């Protein structure tokens, strides 16, 4: 049996990579994709504990997280499309003026 700790370490590694992606990249689409990576890391954690306690509650919560990730990705990408139409850029550094 693989110890639970390995799944927790994997989840932590993916989480930190996602956090680095959110904090350091300029392209807003990559920032959004890193947020999806963070949510997936949390999902691995939840499923590992769901297996440890032999109940499906963790899996149900993971389903809700996937649903929320879908809703957030949809809205986020809509915002990016609207921003792109107005500012012609997808770099986060350049979207710094509310009105020109």
């Amino acid at each position, binding site marked *: 049996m693989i110890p*639970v700790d390995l799944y927790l370490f994997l989840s932590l590694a993916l989480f930190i990579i996602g*956090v680095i992606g959110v904090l350091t990249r300029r392209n807003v689409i990559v920032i959004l994709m890193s947020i*999806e990576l963070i949510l997936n890391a949390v999902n691995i954690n939840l499923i590992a504990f769901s297996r440890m306690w*032999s109940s499906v509650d963790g899996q149900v919560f993971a389903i809700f997280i996937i649903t929320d990730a879908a809703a957030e990705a949809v*809205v986020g990408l809509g915002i990016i499309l609207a921003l792109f139409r107005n500012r012609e850029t997808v770099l986060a*550094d350049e979207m710094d003026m509310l009105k020109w």
Partner: protein
Amino acid sequence: MLLNSILFDFLAGLAVVSAILMVTRRNVVHSAVFLIGTLVATAGIFLQLQAEFLFVVQIILYVGGIMVLFVFVIMLVNLDVTLRFPQFNRQKFVAGALAIALGGQVFAAYWIGHGALHFKGSSSPMPAKNTEAVGQALFQHYMLPFEIASILLLVAMIGAVVMAKRRV
């Protein structure tokens, strides 16, 4: 047992390597492809943890739905000029250091307690019919969050249509 740990090593390695590649690529479409790789590896890990319904849901929804949406939007806003600009912003070193510090703290917490948590193995098995168990939990105990999630999805759909429409 050996197959189990080989499978876990392979899937975990694939997930981490894909994630690192995703965060560092210059070309956004390549980043999306590597994120797909990470998500499929994660789905494999779900399957290994005997969460078969989540395995297929992850692939159908996340990879087959959300990532298709990402790839569509990337192709709509892809500017070739951005390939020549710097990809990382000015705070990259401070941000990286802080993230690694956070990771180090959580890792220390895990390390202090490692070996305390165990899978109970076959002595307390998961429900044999995973899909049915998840369905029953969703529609009996977690009915209210389920309904709220559906309203959330409806709101997100309407919001996306409104925001992506052209102002004629």
